[in-house]
């Protein structure tokens, strides 16, 4: 698996400045440095990699077009996570509406056909997580997905969410409380 190199602050700052100077290849490198974390956050919210990949594409286009508005290049990582969680939450709403229309909510999960290399329980879990995450408020979904990126501190999560650390903890607490009920059968 080629999931890209790790991003250092210095590299990121240099590449952000080069992108602002009009060097597109610099942004391509930023994509490779940050795509894994962006996708990880999007998968946590959307529950599936396919939907998350679309959200990540939207994210990088938006970041590219508005990189001039980023005040501090060293904040590119948190700034990108803010964009990707927003994009994922927006897409989650769309997915939920689509599923509601097709009546493919939790009850229909059992009808998902098994795909090559995937067991039925795995697919069920994915679908169940997707549905459960869509039941959270946008702040709860964002908070628990960012806490899922294990190297982020409470303070960093709070900064990305533009709230206090206490508020971020509260959103995580509520998210867990709801998810425990919604995913009860998978926790036993």
């Amino acid at each position, binding site marked *: 698996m080629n999931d890209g190199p790790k991003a250092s602050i210095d590299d990121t700052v240099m590449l952000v400045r080069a992108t602002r100077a009009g060097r597109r290849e610099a942004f391509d490198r930023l994509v*490779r440095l940050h795509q894994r974390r962006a996708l990880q956050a999007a998968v946590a919210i959307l*529950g599936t990699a396919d939907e*998350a990949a679309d959200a990540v*594409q*939207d994210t990088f*286009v938006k970041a590219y077009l508005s990189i001039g508005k980023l005040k501090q290049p060293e904040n590119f990582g948190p700034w990108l996570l803010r964009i990707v969680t927003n994009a994922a939450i927006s897409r989650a709403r769309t997915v939920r509406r689509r599923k509601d229309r097709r009546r493919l909510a939790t009850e229909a999960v059992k009808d998902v056909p098994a795909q090559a290399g995937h067991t039925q329980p795995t697919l069920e879990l994915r679908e169940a*997580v997707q549905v459960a995450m869509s039941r959270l408020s946008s702040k709860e979904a964002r908070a628990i997905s960012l806490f*899922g990126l294990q190297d982020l501190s409470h303070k960093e999560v709070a900064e990305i969410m533009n709230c206090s650390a206490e508020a971020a903890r509260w959103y995580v607490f509520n998210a867990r409380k709801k*998810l425990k009920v919604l995913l009860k059968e*998978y926790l036993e």
Partner: protein
Amino acid sequence: MNEESERLDALLQRNAAEQLTEVDWDQLNAGISARLDEAERRRKAPVRLPAIFKVAAVLIAAVGVMLTVVTLTTRPGPAERRHGYAAVKILKSTGFASVQIIQTGPQGKAIVDINPAPHLSAKSHVRILDTAEDAARHRSKAAWIIITKPSEPAYADNGFNPQTAAMISLF
């Protein structure tokens, strides 16, 4: 964090991690690159206005041209100026007063500025004459008499070319 919360976090982590192992990063990169190319192309493309804006712009331009033509063709010429139809604009006073003729003709309108008194405006008969000699004959009929002297164009500008500019004298 209690045991149930730990199990939940582990479940979410496992679900995300399993899916990340299946991601085709090259395909994702190619998708992002294509989207960026498209965004860049759109950003550089010239803005295309809807057809209605183009029609409106042409109409506005046509009206502008018509107004210009009408204004120029109805403006009085030098010959008319001497007969009392020309507009006269004062650029420089004679030192103690200045006059601005708003409207010429038998019922002309003029604004007279007598420093340091504040601006006064009044309606008055205005005559435009060619020589100072003519002024004596018309003094009783007009409060202000204007004498044109095409040879001294530096004192005033009647809106036409300098050769036909008029000097204004107050009596």
